[in-house]
């Protein structure tokens, strides 16, 4: 399972990005994206912003769950009060080769079917991602509260990056 | 000062007549009469002269202080006891009470001036601004009133971004709050 997380500002400008893999089920926390997929991920993620714009006015929740799909990549979205978007692209393991196997109990192994993210739309996965987003939101608010931070500024703090990484390890 | 006997409390003469504020250079920065007829009216120019003259007299009385600065610290008398200074006389030169002084306080100069018809109390702030409160001789708790006036000054004058230090006080808010406070005293 690999994740690509990005924070997008109000002008659709990226503020922060981070790639990581699952740490559950003995995962090593490394992202396993193919080299060309890493660039593609950025496009996929940003193309989902159009959908965010539609969904955000019908649902007042901060966490909008999975809003977009591109082949096997699922995109979950969390939108803050000030309209900064947290987008998480998640790709179930092995799905890059067998795209039809998502959620199919017959083709996935016992190990991956219990892991968070094996089924991107299952309630467990949704909850885990929500917990991840909530923790990042907490830290994002702290970043924003810094007197040296202005809205839509890139977040460069290494502490923030560590905190996001820790949240990823903890929940995903 | 012993509290006045009960029949005196009903005395309608108990009144605060006027307030004058003098800046540290001796310039008049505030002047207000609360009770018509308590004091004779004098012209604005006379007020300016009064402020300047008082400033000078105050400076001299501070120099007149008979006690040397080192003995003043050991010989502390509270302001309220100095309020009994003889009528028309001047000069009690003792700093405010409280036992935490680490260095002798500068002599305070003239604090009370009493005449047949009124008593004038002077309070000098640490920054050298002087408040003169003119009250009826039977008025009690002038210290308290002075304290409150000083409070109002620090709030509504010093915290006002449009007030320039040392310049005449023109703050609506101060006028309003001071007016209602003094009215409260005078109607009590």
């Amino acid at each position, binding site marked *: 399972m690999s994740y690509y997380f990005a924070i997008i500002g*109000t002008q659709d*400008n*990226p503020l*922060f*990005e*981070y*790639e*990581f893999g699952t740490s559950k089920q003995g995962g090593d926390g490394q992202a396993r994206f193919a080299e060309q997929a890493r660039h593609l991920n*950025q496009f996929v993620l*940003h193309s989902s912003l159009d959908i965010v714009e539609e969904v*955000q*006015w*019908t649902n*007042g*929740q*901060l966490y909008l769950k999975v809003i977009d799909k591109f082949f096997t990549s699922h995109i979950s979205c969390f*939108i*803050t*009060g*000030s*309209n*900064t978007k947290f987008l998480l692209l998640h790709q179930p393991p092995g799905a890059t080769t067998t795209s039809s196997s998502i959620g199919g109990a017959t083709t996935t192994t016992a190990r991956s079917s219990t892991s968070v993210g094996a089924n991107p739309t299952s309630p467990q996965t949704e909850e885990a991602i929500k917990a991840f987003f909530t923790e990042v*939101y*907490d*830290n*994002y*608010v*702290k*970043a*924003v*509260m*810094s007197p040296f931070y*202005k*809205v839509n500024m*890139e977040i*460069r*703090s*290494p*502490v*923030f*990056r*560590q*905190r996001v*990484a820790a949240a990823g390890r903890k929940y995903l | 000062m012993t509290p006045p006997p009960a029949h005196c409390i009903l005395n309608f003469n108990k009144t605060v007549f006027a307030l004058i504020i003098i800046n540290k250079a001796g310039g008049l920065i505030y002047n207000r009469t609360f009770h018509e007829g308590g004091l004779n009216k004098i012209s604005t120019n006379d007020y300016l002269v009064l402020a300047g003259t008082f400033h000078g007299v105050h400076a001299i009385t501070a120099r007149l202080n008979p006690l040397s600065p080192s003995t003043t610290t050991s010989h502390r008398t509270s302001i309220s006891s100095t309020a009994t200074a003889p009528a028309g006389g001047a000069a009690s030169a003792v700093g405010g009470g409280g036992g935490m002084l680490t260095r002798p306080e500068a002599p305070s100069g003239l604090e009370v001036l009493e005449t047949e018809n009124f008593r004038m109390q002077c309070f000098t702030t640490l920054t050298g601004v002087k408040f003169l409160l003119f009250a009826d001789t039977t008025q009690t708790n002038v210290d308290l009133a002075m304290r409150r006036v000083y409070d109002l000054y620090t*709030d*509504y004058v010093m*915290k*006002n*971004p*449009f*007030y320039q230090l040392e310049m005449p006080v*023109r*703050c*609506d*808010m*101060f006028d*309003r709050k001071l007016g209602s406070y003094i009215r409260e005293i005078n109607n009590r």
Partner: protein
Amino acid sequence: MAHLGPGKAASSKEQAGLRYPSNGKSIYHRPLNRTKTAELSQSSFAYLFSEMVSYAQRRVTGIQELEKRLNLQGHPIGLKLLDLLLTREPPRTQTRPLTIIALLHFIKINLWTHLFGRQADRLEKSSNPDTPDEYMIVDNEPVVNAYISVPREMSQLNCAAFVAGIIEGVCDGAMFPARVTAHTVGGKEEGEMWPGKTVFLVKFQPEVLEREALIGKG
């Protein structure tokens, strides 16, 4: 899109130039809710605000420009408070304001309570049919003006323009772009109950009303 660089390389590069506070704690180590109920001395704020007004007053050409500057000082605060106040909401009510009314209620209740320890006094919609985009938030006694006497020659000025800026920041941040101005409406007479009564006039951009109409239909 600008590529921000893969995580590791970027963080190791930046770490070199970072200086931590002497106790090793950064803003990320502080809990967000610790100061939720903390209070600030009104005196210290009054002195600070007094200096902010004096600062804004330097080299301004007129009252409007001064108000504009005060507004700009408040704007980023509004943007930031929007996120902070939302995180402090309990999960059940943690929702983004989607309508003008929800947003104004958020301002009247949450924002005001956070800033001034009480709610705003009233919320009104413009009764003039020509200006359906105007709303009014009324504060009988703005805390920021508590010790301020505006000189007669500047009678147009209301220093609560700073608070108007905060409101504008909240509106802009929540994607309800608006123009907010502060107006003194209290009378100057002696017996006036609220001489400092201030109306914050919130004028939303036309696209906000357009969207509002669309959402209403949907």
